[in-house]
């Protein structure tokens, strides 16, 4: 053994002389003399900034390194996993050095590189939740609002670059559809790994290779396959025995998902919001299919512009919600979403309206105390299968609602009462089937809805005496009933040719709407019918036959959609009071276009345009209908009144996930042209009588906007800036004078979340609105409204959290200054948070706002919630398998 080694050394020595370049060579052995192979030997410059050469030892432990030409001295560095590291200075001359390495296990520096907080994969933008979460955050919604590009509105609506999300998936499953707020507010953020924004998301799988989509959806990716989480929040406070309870358990697995919730609050927490659909699609569907409640009454339930309802809402609400989704064989999903809501809300406000006419002003002072009792039940049963082979979805929806509203009023020093009762019952079924047949897709859609609403209004006295002209009565009663039956059915065929999809849709919409109303005069306890001018027995309806020709082109950077619907509308109006009957029919064309162009990967340009023309049938009640104590209106028999609308949008978006920077800006306009105008007679008594007159007119709106946001990961700082400018023009016909009104409004909305030090965070928000309205030809109104919010969050330790919020509101028109301070202290013990809240420390109990509208300005003073203390115990269990 020794002789062979010697022989090799001799041979190598000899060989080295042959080569021109000088070398360092030798053997690396352990203490027992065994050769060590695969050892890295590096030859470095003295400051180790340069690597001259390296060698990896062979199985005999031999290494050989070329020496550099220039350096005088070098370093030999030998680093291994299981031996002591060697650094040796050597002279730059050919030599043989053997190393005997001492055993020692080296700990290697480990690195867990945090992934970028935001990264893009195709059309998906991933936000790592932990990168945005701070100590006080508990649920997903807390973290979501700090993510650049994403915003959470005060009602809980999530938008991405200003676009509302279509779906809110939890691990790819759609448990809640549009009612995602309940999940967003209750899923502990620790259970979530990433929030994915799915751009151009096509939720129907069969469509994937056919139609591209322009909508945005959100997917909440959970950390574990099975997640059980529960939010429990119990709060009590003074004064008035305040309580706020939230118990929301949830379970998410691959096969089933469930979320149950019971909440109760009288602290101004608007829990009803959790049950509202926030999806634009749901809203559009509802409008198109008319399955919502058509309220006869004018319920002006405006609220002051606070970010949180906890300032002004005097509620006593309970909600229960059951959501269950099971994934069965063959990818069939069954889902039940049921909820119940009951509430009693009180509103106390004064309202001053100044109506401006050419030579006159009217001042109406109204003092209102209102109680609203609401009971809502809604259940939705869904079965769906969303596969590449086909799509099937059936939704059966039941709604039962009842609203009872009692008002005590003082109008220009006259006091009286009114009460409304508005029940609503609705059933609907929506069926949708899509099947691919070769290269074609065939879909069938059917929607049917029935709803009825018997409504009741009772007024003591009231201001409408002038019209009815009988001073001896003691008030009015109005009974009304609305019955609506809707149906919409179509068949669609799509075919792909190269980069284009052509589709053809043919269908029929049917609607019938029956309205009965009758106003009675009260003489003590006796009710007597008024003449037929105050009655309605109207049946309006008809069919729409439509053919839609669609082309969608999609190739690399360019995408465009054209849609040309031809609608043949046939309508009838049967009036049972004046025995009048009329039919009308017409062919309308309603083209739509959309174009999208991607430039430089990060920039997207989008544009869209649409034109619509149809009959307007909502003003066919020829008898007067009471809408409020001071508001009565009636329509006309004509049903061939036309309504035309144009709208267009331009948008440019820049997204850079790498730099966590997002910008979007654009312009949109809409123009509405109608054949008719609502004529308003406004009396000095405050009475308003609206009637329809055939005067062509138009309304237009133009808006410019810019939204930008950036996140700085090192300091966990996010900056947002939103700008908005809108111009609205409208024609009003008031007291037989045509008035044009123009409103210009500019809104600046900056927001910053900043980490000042390890123990302190600051949140600054402000909203500045400048509004200028030209209400009539001569009257100009302008105001500047400022709102500033400052929140200081201080963390004395990992278990404690203190926050102070200051908000300031000012309106230049009424010269009002409002200042609010809220304080919160939170102490965490294991998984339990104890929280102490002191709201409205300054005890500001009134708030005034100022708005301009058509030809009047409106001052409202609301009663606010007084200074309140709340003590809460919160814990969120999140058990992961």
């Amino acid at each position, binding site marked *: 053994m020794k002789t062979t080694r010697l022989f090799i050394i001799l041979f190598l020595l000899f060989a080295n002389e042959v080569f021109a370049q000088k070398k360092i060579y030798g053997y690396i052995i352990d203490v027992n003399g065994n050769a060590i192979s*695969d*050892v*890295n*030997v*590096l030859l470095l410059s003295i400051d*180790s*900034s*340069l*690597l*001259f*050469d*390296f*060698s*990896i030892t062979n199985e005999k432990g031999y290494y050989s390194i070329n020496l550099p030409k220039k350096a005088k001295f070098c370093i030999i*560095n030998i*680093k*291994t*996993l299981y031996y002591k590291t060697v650094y040796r200075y050597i002279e730059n001359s050919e030599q043989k050095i053997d190393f005997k390495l001492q055993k020692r296990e*080296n700990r*290697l*520096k*480990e*690195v*867990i*590189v945090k*992934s970028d907080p935001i*990264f893009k*994969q*195709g059309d998906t933008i991933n936000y790592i939740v932990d990168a945005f979460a701070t100590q006080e955050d508990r649920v997903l919604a807390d973290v979501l609002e700090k993510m650049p590009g994403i915003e959470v509105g005060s009602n809980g609506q999530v938008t991405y670059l200003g676009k509302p999300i279509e779906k809110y998936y939890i691990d790819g499953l759609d448990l809640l559809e549009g009612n995602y707020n309940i999940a967003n507010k209750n899923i502990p953020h620790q259970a979530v790994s990433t929030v994915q924004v799915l751009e151009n998301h096509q939720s129907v799988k069969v469509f994937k*290779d056919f139609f591209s989509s322009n909508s945005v959806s959100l997917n909440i990716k959970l950390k574990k*396959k099975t997640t059980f989480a529960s939010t429990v929040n119990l709060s009590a406070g003074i004064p008035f025995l305040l309580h706020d309870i939230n118990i929301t358990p949830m379970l998410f697995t*691959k096969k089933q998902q469930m979320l149950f919730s019971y909440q109760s609050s009288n602290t101004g927490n608007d829990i009803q919001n959790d049950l509202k659909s926030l999806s634009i699609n749901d809203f559009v569907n509802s409008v198109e299919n008319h399955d919502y409640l058509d309220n006869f009454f004018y319920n002006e339930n405006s609220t002051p512009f606070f970010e949180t309802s906890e300032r002004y809402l005097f509620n006593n609400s309970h909600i229960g919600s059951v959501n269950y989704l099971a994934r069965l*064989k*063959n990818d069939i999903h069954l889902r039940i979403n049921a909820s119940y809501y009951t509430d009693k809300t009180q509103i106390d406000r004064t309202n001053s309206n100044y109506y401006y006419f050419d030579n006159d002003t009217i001042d109406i002072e109204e003092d209102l105390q209102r109680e609203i009792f609401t009971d809502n039940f809604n259940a939705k049963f869904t079965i769906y299968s969303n596969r*590449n082979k086909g799509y099937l979805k059936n939704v059966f929806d039941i709604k039962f609602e009842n609203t009872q509203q009692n008002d005590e009023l003082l109008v220009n020093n006259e006091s009286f009462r009114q009460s409304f009762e508005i029940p609503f019952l609705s059933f609907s079924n929506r069926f949708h089937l899509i099947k*691919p047949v*070769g*290269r074609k897709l065939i879909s069938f859609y059917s929607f049917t809805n029935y709803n009825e609403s018997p409504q009741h209004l009772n007024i003591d006295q009231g201001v409408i005496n002038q019209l009815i002209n009988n001073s001896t009565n003691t008030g009015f009663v109005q009974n009304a009933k609305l019955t609506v039956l809707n149906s919409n059915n179509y068949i669609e065929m799509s075919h792909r040719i190269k980069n284009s999809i052509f589709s053809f849709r043919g269908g029929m919409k049917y609607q019938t709407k029956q309205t009965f109303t009758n106003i009675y005069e009260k003489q003590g306890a006796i009710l007597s019918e008024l003449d037929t001018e105050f009655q309605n027995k109207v049946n309006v309806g008809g069919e729409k036959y439509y053919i839609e020709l669609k082309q969608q082109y999609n190739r*690399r*950077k360019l995408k465009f959609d054209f849609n040309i619907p031809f609608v043949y509308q046939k309508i009838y109006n049967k009036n049972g009071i004046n025995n009048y009957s009329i039919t009308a029919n017409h062919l309308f064309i309603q083209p739509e276009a959309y174009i999208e162009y*991607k430039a430089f*990967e990060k920039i997207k340009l989008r544009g869209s345009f649409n034109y619509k023309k149809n009959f307007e049938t909502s003003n066919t009640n020829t008898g007067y209908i009471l809408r409020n104590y001071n508001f009565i209106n009636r329509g006309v028999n004509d049903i061939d009144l036309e309504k035309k609308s144009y709208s267009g949008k331009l948008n440019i978006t820049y997204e850079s996930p790498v730099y966590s920077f997002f910008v979007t800006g654009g312009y949109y306009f809409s123009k509405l042209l109608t054949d008719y105008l609502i004529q308003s007679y406004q009396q000095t008594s405050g009475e308003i009588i609206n009637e329809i007159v055939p005067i062509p007119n138009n309304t237009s709106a133009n808006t410019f906007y810019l939204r930008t946001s950036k996140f700085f990961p090192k300091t966990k700082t996010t900056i947002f800036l939103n700008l908005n400018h809108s111009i609205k023009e409208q024609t009003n016909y008031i007291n037989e004078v045509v008035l044009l009104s123009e409103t210009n409004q500019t809104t600046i909305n900056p927001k910053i979340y900043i980490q000042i030090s390890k123990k302190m965070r600051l949140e600054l928000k402000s909203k500045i609105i400048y509004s200028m309205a030209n209400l009539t030809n001569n009257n100009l109104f302008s105001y500047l409204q400022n709102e500033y919010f400052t929140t200081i969050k201080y963390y004395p330790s990992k278990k404690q959290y203190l926050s102070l919020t200051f908000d300031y509101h000012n309106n230049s028109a009424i010269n009002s200054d409002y200042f609010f301070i809220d304080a919160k202290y939170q102490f965490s013990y294991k998984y339990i948070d104890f929280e102490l809240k002191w709201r409205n420390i300054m005890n500001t109990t009134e708030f005034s706002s100022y708005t301009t509208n058509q030809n009047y300005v409106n001052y409202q003073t609301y009663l606010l919630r007084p200074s309140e203390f709340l003590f809460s115990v919160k814990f969120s269990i999140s058990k992961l398998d």
Partner: protein
Amino acid sequence: MKILLIIILNISILYNNIISQDADKIDSIQYTAEYMLTFRSDSTNRERIRMEEMSLLIGSKYSCFLSTNQINREQKVKEAVEKAIALGETMDMRGIPKPRFSYMIYKNYPKDKITTYDIIIGAGFHKYEENKKLFKWEIINETKEISGYKCYNAKTSFGGRTYIAWFTPEIPMNDGPYKFNGLPGLIIDIKDTKDDYHFELRNFYKQKEKDYIVLSTFDYIKVSPCEFKEIRKNCLNNLKTIMQESEFQVSEGQMELSIEKHRKNSNYIELE
């Protein structure tokens, strides 16, 4: 990917008895290096950028480089098959994420060789051996700190592409992503000059729980590296015939979409 899945499924059902064997543990994992691979699979559409998490499992003798989703995938598929057979149900593969790359590269297995196990769409399981000393590195004298490691720079040509690599002697393993090896330290970052394939180290950690580098229990047909590329090329050109002859009934439209997809994804890391 779908076709690939079907092939895997088919074979896994056919070779059910093989599957019931335990995977062959060849080494215990000492360290794991996780890389993020950003790549352009479609050379005609440079905007189509994909990402895939890859793992280098470093044992005391061998190392294995594969898509992170490929780790223990066979075991998971096997369990799903067994469950499906036991319950008489259709297979549920949804919980098993799909890797974008089916290769598994074993370095130093056998000694001084690299063995690549891969699936050719339309032809099935194949493996080939190469010499471990595939790379001639040229040191470029630059240093840079990446993720806290001091890194040096080197250049090489391989498979028709030129690569720039950053490696750190602080991790004294002459290993790297894909087949890359032979530098005096772990490769932290490597990309080709066209920016088609870019591996970046995300995580590097010592194995805490005992885990193994395993060999597949499937029968991989042994071929030469040249044969492998030839078979792959032939299959791609004749994918339609192969699919028509297979027992799986796929609609014409779906088949064409799938073929188109595979053609587009043929910007392989090794061009030659």
